[in-house]
């Protein structure tokens, strides 16, 4: 057990440390080159540098490589390659604005390293009921996981600090679940996710000094998805990020097509004079988690962020409880 604790501390220190050091350098570089975007929920003219993707990826890869040095496995190599591919996809969208279908389609490439290296189990574990052996179909599950989780995390990156703090909660939830399931080495793979997200949160919290951008959000999502696949905890991982899945579902079911936020005809929220956010009544605007939360009345950005994060804590508890009950009822 002591070797796991040491490994966790080392890869957390390396991963979190790299992101913590690189992010301010990246902020300065992006500001100097005027690579900034407006913060839609602040007073007019407020801009924030983006993307933080390079600092996120560097921290994650450094953390996972530190882990690899102590516990070498093909799974970790697959996780690093899959996450790096997602980063490239996101960076392409950051540099050159792509259409709505680009990210869902291009993220299929992030599944390729996992499939080629074979860093997955062909049995899909369903909580309470046991496993289903789907050797051929499971390849589709891997692709779907990477595409859905990557884009889902990207879709909740709408307020200062939400995506990074949500990933801290999700990473902790997944790590605890994997420990309960007895998959300690996969649980260690979550440590860089938590550390990097926590380091990013330091700069991303309200008021944000940097935004993750597509490269950052897709990197965060795909590192979570690939570690979940490596640990054989796909369904538990989906339960833990249910608020993000709910947000994507609400968005897609109201718009009835894949569309980028920038292509929306009407925004789901409007900024009041006192800088609080209110839900819009415009029928052309999408239904989102933020809009649903605002139906009970206007809120500040920090209040909405807290509400989303409490939902994240709730779903993480659901995931952990599911893993614990499954382990007792139907140990795999």
């Amino acid at each position, binding site marked *: 057990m002591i070797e796991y604790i040491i490994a966790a501390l080392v890869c957390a220190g390396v991963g979190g440390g790299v992101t913590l050091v690189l992010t301010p350098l990246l902020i300065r570089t992006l500001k100097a080159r005027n690579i900034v975007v407006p913060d839609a929920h602040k007073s007019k003219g407020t801009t924030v540098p983006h993307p933080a993707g390079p600092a996120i990826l560097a921290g994650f890869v450094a953390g996972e490589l530190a882990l690899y040095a102590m516990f070498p496995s093909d799974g970790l190599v697959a996780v690093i390659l899959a996450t790096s591919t997602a980063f490239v996809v996101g960076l392409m969208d950051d540099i050159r604005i792509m259409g709505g279908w680009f990210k869902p389609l291009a993220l299929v490439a992030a599944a390729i390293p996992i499939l080629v290296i074979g860093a997955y189990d062909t049995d899909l574990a*369903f*909580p*309470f*009921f*046991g*496993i*289903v*052996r*789907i*050797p*051929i*179909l499971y390849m*589709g599950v891997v692709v779907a996981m990477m595409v859905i989780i990557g884009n889902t995390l990207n879709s909740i990156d709408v307020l200062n600090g939400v995506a990074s703090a949500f990933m801290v909660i999700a990473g902790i939830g997944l790590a605890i679940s994997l420990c309960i399931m007895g998959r300690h080495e996969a649980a260690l793979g979550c440590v860089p996710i938590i550390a990097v997200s926590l380091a990013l949160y330091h700069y991303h919290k309200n008021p944000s000094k940097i935004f993750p951008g597509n490269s950052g959000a897709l990197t965060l999502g795909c590192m979570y998805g690939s570690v979940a696949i490596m640990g054989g905890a796909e*369904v538990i991982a*989906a*339960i833990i990020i*249910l*608020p993000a*899945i*709910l947000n994507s*579902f*609400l968005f897609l*079911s109201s718009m009835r097509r894949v569309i980028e936020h920038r292509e929306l005809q009407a925004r789901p929220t409007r900024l009041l004079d006192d800088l609080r956010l209110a839900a819009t009544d415009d029928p052309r605007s999408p*239904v989102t*988690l933020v809009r*649903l*939360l605002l*139906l*009970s*009345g206007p*809120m500040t950005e920090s209040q909405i962020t807290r*509400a989303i994060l409490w*939902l994240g804590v*709730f*779903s993480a508890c*659901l995931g952990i409880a*599911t893993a614990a009950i499954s382990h007792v009822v139907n140990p795999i």
Partner: protein
Amino acid sequence: MNHIRIYAFVAGLWALIIIGGGVVTLVLGTIHLEEDADTPTKIALSAVKGIVAILLIIVWIYILNIVKRKIFASQKHA
């Protein structure tokens, strides 16, 4: 602030995942082929399982849409 319905929605999503998993495990999971079954038969069975899984997802989305409309309407009038 009344966000209890959104928590109920998340809990509902969780219940649907668990129920869907039960159907997949107890129904689809019990369908097996003999060890010496040929590859086309294995692929055909996988395709059938895949189609059933997709149908389950469609039912899942349909139920969620109904729940979403009810929550959205009730929150709007709250």
